[in-house]
């Protein structure tokens, strides 16, 4: 039992399977290639944003700007990538650089990341609005073609999420450098004693967070018809909830990349699930909140059982 519980992804996985199973039973038609593509169509950008959040949470910080940041990336792509690719790439790289610098400053000056990233959420929101004051835009056709590609047997979003989870698992959980990243969240002093720079590590994590935030924005751009500056603003809270749902903790360097991706999938599905079981539209947000509470309460119980 203990060895099973060690796999923190187990609980979110069970939640996800239960949700999917119920949907299959209620709507057998979803149990098809097309049905699955529909259910999971927006999972990839959410999963990428969750991963971006996870990198920051892994080092005991939090990023309240990720939603606005992803929105900025999305509107940049739909506005410039087709016509002025140089501007688009420049803006996106600049965004990653600035995000990295924010991480470095947070550590260097011991500033609370919750407020700095809150301020940055206004900043990125403003940038997004300046790039695209009115809804519209158009992603390059090649991008749409990539994110909507029809892969054999398993729909692309699901496939991509599995690959994403595997890659991140290798990077964060299996590689030597991942050990250092997580160790920083666990015991900064131990990392410093090993002769490493905590500022450097935190910057690296914010860099990765910025990179995956941009990826999330790019993928989202390919999925939508038109974008506005608020397109991903709910990703901030969604990503935090998904990381925690996926077995992460706010402190202690305890995160699970696979869990985070599964958490993102669970939250994406929860919405579909609620409409399938005919929860009235009015109550759907509330039921999402309830699912979040139940999942976290369950986790609290299993954690207590462990100790």
């Amino acid at each position, binding site marked *: 039992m203990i060895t099973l519980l060690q796999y923190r992804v187990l609980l979110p996985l069970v939640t996800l399977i239960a949700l999917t199973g119920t949907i299959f039973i209620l709507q057998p038609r979803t149990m098809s290639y097309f049905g699955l593509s529909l259910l999971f169509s927006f999972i990839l950008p959410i999963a990428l944003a969750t991963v971006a959040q996870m990198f920051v949470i892994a080092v005991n910080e939090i990023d309240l700007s990720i939603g606005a940041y992803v929105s900025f990336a999305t509107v940049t792509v739909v506005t410039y990538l087709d016509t002025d690719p140089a501007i688009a790439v420049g803006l996106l790289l600049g965004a990653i650089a600035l995000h990295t610098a924010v991480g470095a400053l947070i550590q260097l000056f011991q500033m609370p990341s919750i407020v700095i990233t809150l301020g940055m959420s206004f900043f990125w929101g403003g940038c997004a609005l300046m790039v695209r004051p009115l809804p519209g835009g158009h992603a390059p056709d090649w991008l749409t073609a990539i994110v909507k590609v029809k892969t054999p047997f398993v729909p692309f979003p699901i496939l991509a999420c599995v690959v994403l989870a595997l890659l991140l698992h290798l990077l964060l959980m299996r590689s*030597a450098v991942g050990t*250092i990243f997580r160790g920083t969240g666990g015991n900064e002093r131990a990392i410093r*004693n090993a002769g490493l720079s905590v500022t450097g590590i935190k910057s690296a994590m914010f860099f990765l967070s910025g990179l995956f935030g941009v990826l999330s924005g790019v993928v989202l751009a390919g999925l939508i018809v038109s974008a506005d500056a608020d397109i991903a603003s709910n990703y901030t809270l969604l990503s935090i909830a998904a990381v925690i749902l996926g077995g992460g903790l706010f402190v*202690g360097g*305890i995160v699970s990349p696979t869990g985070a991706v599964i958490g993102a999938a669970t939250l994406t599905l929860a919405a579909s699930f609620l409409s399938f079981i005919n929860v009235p539209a009015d109550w759907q947000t509330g039921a999402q909140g309830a699912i979040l509470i139940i999942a976290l309460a369950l986790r609290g119980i299993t954690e207590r059982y462990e100790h």
Partner: protein
Amino acid sequence: MQTDKIRPVLLDLTGVDKSFGQVHALSGVSLSLHQGLCTGLVGHNGAGKSTLINVIAGFLPPSAGDVAFDGVGTLNLLSIDQRSALGIRCVLQELSLCPNLTVAENTQLLHRHLRGRGWRRKAADLIIAKLDDIFPGHGIAPHTELRRLPLGARQMVEIARAFTQTTTEVRLVILDEPTSSLDTQSSAQLLRYVRTFVEGGKNCLFVSHKMDEITSVTDEVVVLKDGRVVHQIETKDTSRAEIVSKMGSIDTDLRGASQKKTFGGKDSDGIALGLPAGPDIPPLSLRPGEVIGLAGLAGDGQTEALKSVLARYKRKCTFVAGDRATDGVFPLWSIKHNTSIGALHSLLSNGIIRSQSEAKLANDWKDKIGIRASGIDADLTSLSGGNQQKVLFARALASASDIVLMDDPTRGVDVGTKREIYQIIEAEAQTGRSFLWYSTEFDELTYCDRVLVFCQGKVAVVLEGAEINEQNVIAFSFGQKVSA
């Protein structure tokens, strides 16, 4: 000594000083460790043992003096990881591992060149081989997260990690109370391993309160007292009793037994303490006006005892923290607010705190116990440690509670302030307040009417009157049985 001439010096400390503010933790420590020996480092609470090993390991820079290592020269400018690369390893009491990483991953943090394909297996093999070596039958899986292991197992991992060797040779391992969370069997295994380790020409600096460990594992013993080396002798030439006596101070019993008042009160007037106690100890109670001291080795259950009394009697008690930063200080508040927090209910009019009464209360106590500050509105953190401590006393004494619990409250306080604090305690006891006073200093225990000596989490003996002396306290805190 014969052996010294044969064995070259590995580590050489000359005139090492370390002070924290006005407190001198180490003064002029000179010490040479000769290759292939296990050196025992002993001393009573606050003798400077922790500071000394922190200086050697590189966690603290010395205020003065030099630490030199064989073949390298001075270590003073080297960081912890550089010292570790030279073969100086350290196992401190607080865990320096990452609780969220696995046993193997924590090993990699020390051996960072283990990377690339198969590093996890290599790190796992390395640590498991060493665990097998030191603690046969340990049953620790290499890919378990550390926080999921029991405390003893974590300690075993930390110890084993310090002995693991890849590119450079491990030459000196510092062990600070390594057996504190190990069971008897693992402790014995560790001691055996330390012997084989030093017989292979390596060194070990072994810090322990347990005298049987010191006598069985070390080649020589260094006794620290008040930040100085007072005694260094080969283990075979000394005895447990001699070591213990060297730890004590020469001028025992500052006040003398004659001065001690005999305390009247009856048990029935007091409150039951309900402390964990050995079999021969009668139920303990604290009488009005009584000062009871809690003694014994640091961390042997005294603080827990105080907190259990607080939890039991709540508002009847007030607590004076010794670990100021963690347990006492509200760092963003002024002296006034820090003082009044325990007495707010006496300052109310219509539910609102009267500013004048609050200021008066703070000023009165500031004068009464001589807090040296520009005014009561100054930030608490702008004061010296001793004055901060006085504010915590003021907080406790200003409250309406009859019972004052004190958790080694003079920790890191200068001598003058201590004297003042003792006077306050005596004066307050006269007015009928009772004190439960955990102290790590013998002198302070002489101010107590009774002293409870703790050993391994329990009250081992109750000393009264002339029985309260340093010899008794040391003897009982090291586990001596009450003689009939």
